[in-house]
């Protein structure tokens, strides 16, 4: 997750923006729940407080949904939510909770599956960034890919880029469909 | 005058020098131009074994390195009596940092010399038993484990003399010190399991470990010379009596060292990479009483009712050394 925030900040940096990524500091061991933050701005970022009112939320492990107050501070209406899952928001049992959000900003993507497929290991970060780029449109895929390659040079990097691209496509596709549905209704 | 082949005793087997030896066969100490690394005017007590041992060792090291030597010194008698402002007795570049960090300081010196390409300059760390076996133990073990290119010399006078003779982990059983007084049912220091630094050093499998006493100069010099031929972590443990702390006559410093070896209480040997490679045999084996009796720190063993049990216990330590290191010549005695 921490890596995800890092790559996110790098991608933003590559697009000429100021970015600040930092983990929720702790002595966590691998696998334990962690939160990482990323600020993106057009001016120098001086603020050092943790992000308490995020504009976007990337949930890597949906099993935490009911354990920690994941959504606290996220503004209903214009907040983004991206969840790493092959299930739907309803299947996850939060359909009702997110009813107040703009549906086109709510997305799920099977990032872990994609990672296993393209990288061979269940490391969903890159895929989630691809999905994030797609759902928010704040970053373009190219800079995400560059950030990934910067972090993981060589084959692993390319695998991750592939995963990210796949996720990007999936999300874009869903959004297109969703848009069509919207018009249909 | 032409010199006869070295064949007979007076050619110096046991003496410091001797006119009958070819100059290059004499000890460093016999040299008229010896470096006196620890020069006169130092404030050591009369008959100080540490002052003697330090000059023996450092002179030998200077001789072996053509004076390309730097020393780091732990806090303690040696440091205090050799460098009270505004006078120092040292002839070599020397630094005193702290009590417990000498090995590490030496590591830093060696590292810096390596970076600066001064491989010719060698590094010695030195301290007393406190700065070696107690407070300096951590840094020492680290230096050993990394096999840093440092020779650590411990001048062991078996207690904290600088602060007034308190017990250290090198203090022998039954010895009286300011913190193990000769009172109560078990007077003097406890009979612990012992903390044999040379053996602990060997357990790091460093290239070279040796013990020596100020009673056998040639042996001591040979060991320093050997140590200087080797790169990596090396350790020499030198037995240096303290007339003040042990309560023996100032003129008996060397005699006491000799007795420590001849009774088997202080085994003199060499080891490389954890294996004992040579042992200095006992020449005329003596019972431990001979060693204990002249020292006031053991006086309580020889009172109205001598503590025969305790003496026997100490003798057992000596016998164990004799067995373990094979200190007695086969067939002898």
């Amino acid at each position, binding site marked *: 997750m921490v890596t995800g925030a890092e790559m996110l900040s790098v991608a933003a940096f590559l697009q000429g923006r100021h970015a600040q990524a930092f983990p929720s500091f702790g002595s966590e061991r691998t696998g334990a729940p962690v939160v990482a933050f990323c600020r993106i701005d057009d001016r120098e970022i001086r603020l050092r407080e943790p992000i308490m009112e995020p504009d976007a939320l990337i949930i890597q492990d949906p099993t935490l949904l009911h354990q920690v107050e994941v959504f606290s501070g996220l503004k209903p209406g214009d907040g983004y939510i991206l969840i790493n899952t092959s299930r739907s928001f309803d299947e996850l049992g939060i359909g009702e909770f997110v009813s107040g959000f703009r549906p086109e900003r709510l997305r799920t993507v099977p990032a872990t599956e994609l990672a296993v497929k393209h990288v061979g290991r269940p490391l969903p970060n890159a895929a989630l960034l691809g999905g994030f780029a797609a759902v928010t449109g704040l970053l373009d895929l190219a800079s995400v890919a560059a950030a990934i390659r910067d972090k993981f040079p060589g084959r692993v990097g390319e695998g991750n880029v592939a995963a990210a691209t796949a996720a990007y496509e999936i999300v874009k596709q869903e959004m297109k469909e969703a848009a069509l549905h919207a018009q249909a209704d | 005058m032409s010199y006869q082949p070295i064949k007979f005793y007076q050619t110096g087997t046991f003496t410091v*020098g*001797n*006119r009958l030896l070819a100059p290059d066969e004499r000890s460093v100490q016999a040299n008229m131009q010896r470096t006196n690394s620890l020069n006169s005017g130092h404030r050591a007590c009369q*008959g100080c074994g540490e002052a003697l041992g330090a000059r023996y060792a450092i002179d030998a090291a200077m001789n072996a390195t053509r004076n390309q030597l730097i020393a780091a010194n732990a806090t303690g008698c040696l440091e205090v009596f050799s460098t009270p402002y505004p*006078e120092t007795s040292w002839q070599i570049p020397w630094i005193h940092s702290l009590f417990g960090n000498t090995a590490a300081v030496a590591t830093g010196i060696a590292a810096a010399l390596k970076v600066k390409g001064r491989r010719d300059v060698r590094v010695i760390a030195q301290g007393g038993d406190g700065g070696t076996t107690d407070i300096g133990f951590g840094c020492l073990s680290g230096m050993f484990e990394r096999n840093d290119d440092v020779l650590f010399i411990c001048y062991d006078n078996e207690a904290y003399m600088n602060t007034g003779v308190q017990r250290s982990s090198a203090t022998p059983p039954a010895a009286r010190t300011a913190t193990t007084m000769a009172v109560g049912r078990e007077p003097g220091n406890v009979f612990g399991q012992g903390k044999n630094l040379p053996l602990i050093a060997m357990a790091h499998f460093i290239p070279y470990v040796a013990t020596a006493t100020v009673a056998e100069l040639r042996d001591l010099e040979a060991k320093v010379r050997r140590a200087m031929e080797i790169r990596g972590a090396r350790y020499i443990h030198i037995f240096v009596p303290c007339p003040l702390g042990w309560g023996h006559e*100032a003129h008996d*410093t060397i005699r006491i060292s000799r007795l420590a070896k001849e009774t088997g209480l202080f085994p003199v040997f060499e080891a490389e990479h954890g294996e004992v490679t040579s042992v200095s045999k006992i020449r005329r084996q003596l019972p431990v009483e001979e060693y204990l009796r002249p020292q006031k720190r053991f006086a309580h063993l020889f009172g109205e009712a001598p503590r025969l049990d305790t003496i026997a216990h100490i003798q057992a330590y000596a016998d164990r050394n004799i067995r373990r290191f094979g200190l007695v010549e086969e067939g002898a005695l």
Partner: protein
Amino acid sequence: MDKPFAITLDVGSSLANRTGSWRTNRPLYVDRLPPCNNACPAGENIQGWLYPAESGDYEAAWRVLTQDNPLPAVMGRVCYHPCEDACNRAQLDSPVGINSVERFLGDEAIRRGWRFAPLASESGKRVLIVGAGPSGLSAAYHLRRLGHRVAIHEAGPVAGGMMRFGIPKYRLPRDVLEAEVRRILDMGVELALNARVDNILSTLRMGEFDAAFLAVGAHIGKRAYIPAGSAARMLDAVSLLRSMEGEERPLLGRRVVVYGGGNTAIDVARTAKRLGAAESIIVYRRTREKMPAHDSEVEEALQEGVMIRWLSTIREAGAASITVEKMVLDEKGFPQPTGEVETLEADSVVLALGQDVDLSLLKGVPGLVIRDGVVQVGPNMMTGYLGIFAGGDMVPSERTVTVAVGHGKKAARHIDAWLRGGRYVAPPKHELATFDKLNTWYYSDAPKTVRPTLDIVRRQSTFDEVVGSLDESNALYEARRCLSCGNCFECDNCYGVCPDNAVIKLGPGKRFEFNYDYCKGCGLCATECPCGAIQMVPEKI
């Protein structure tokens, strides 16, 4: 470099701190008297000549030796070496073979033809010496070295005295004796042979001598009353031994009985063996412990088959046998007759009961005191008559070559002083370097080397020298066994063991010096000095 204040100091600056002020005891270098020197009747500086010998400088060693004794080759054979009995090394392993090294040096000198150094200036005085024995020769040598002209009058046909007529060849080969005598004569000593002095005063007067040294020895064999048949063949030891130097050998027969217990008795018995006697029996009235003869001599005699009858006296002598009476020692250790007798076959009986001095030359000399058949002399060896000194066997003392040589030296010094109108005062003796003053740890174990001895058959048939010499390396080895008691041998211990570098090494032969500016007086140097050449003395406060 611009060093941080106080924290960083310039090397060696502590020399400004004179720690000598701490001292309550001060070390001093001393020379103590080695027991060997102390025990030598000839007053040799034994440690002194062993020292150069240790480094193989034999000539230097010989020159030190001959400052006291001109006859090392002789002494190295006939001396009973009390030095070795006194040697501290005996308490470590065995005494240093001083005598054998002395002999080696003596022989080396003869082999290489070393000569004595030219004399000091002539004094113009003339001294008469009567007798060319060890004492006379020694006196002549020393007087000559002191610049006096010396004339020896010898009654016999050759020089040497008892060394020639008392000691058998197998103990002292004649060529050795002659070589050393010649060396003395070469110093310009006049020797008149067959020149018996009948009246000392007239000889002095006629020869215009300024002083005289009498050393005529004791050549008259003591007689004891033994009832003897006319046929009995009895001779005295002195005459017998003297006759050995003559043309034809004396006839002793197959069974020889020697009566007495001194070294002469032994010499005779061993000589008899060599002359072909089947039996050579010594009859002695006491036990071996009480026997005056030197133990090594007795040992060698027994090895050669000489038999000894302890606790026996000769009652009477017959044609071909003698009667011997058994004795017992009383509580005082004196032999008492038992009346128990037995008969021994004997072709001849040799009496070795000691010798008397022929004092005829002293008739009419006023002031002389003669007691127990010998001339009494003062501590300066002068007789009761001014200018007449005496020594050797004719004065009261033990009768050995070594003692005689010592007398010669002592007398010479006093005569010299007397001639110059002064008194010779011997320098005060150093404190004795006793064993407890040594730190023997530093000496490794090195047992004495045994001199080779002649095989038994040749010892019984020939007069070849019984005891051989050490070769060069053995001699060096023996020399190096010397502990150098009480005298610095530059082992560098003091220089090495000083924790304060307060000992200054002055270089080869120059020994050491203390630097009292820094010496704290710990005393390590004194304790660790192997040879006891450092003494600690309290500082005066």
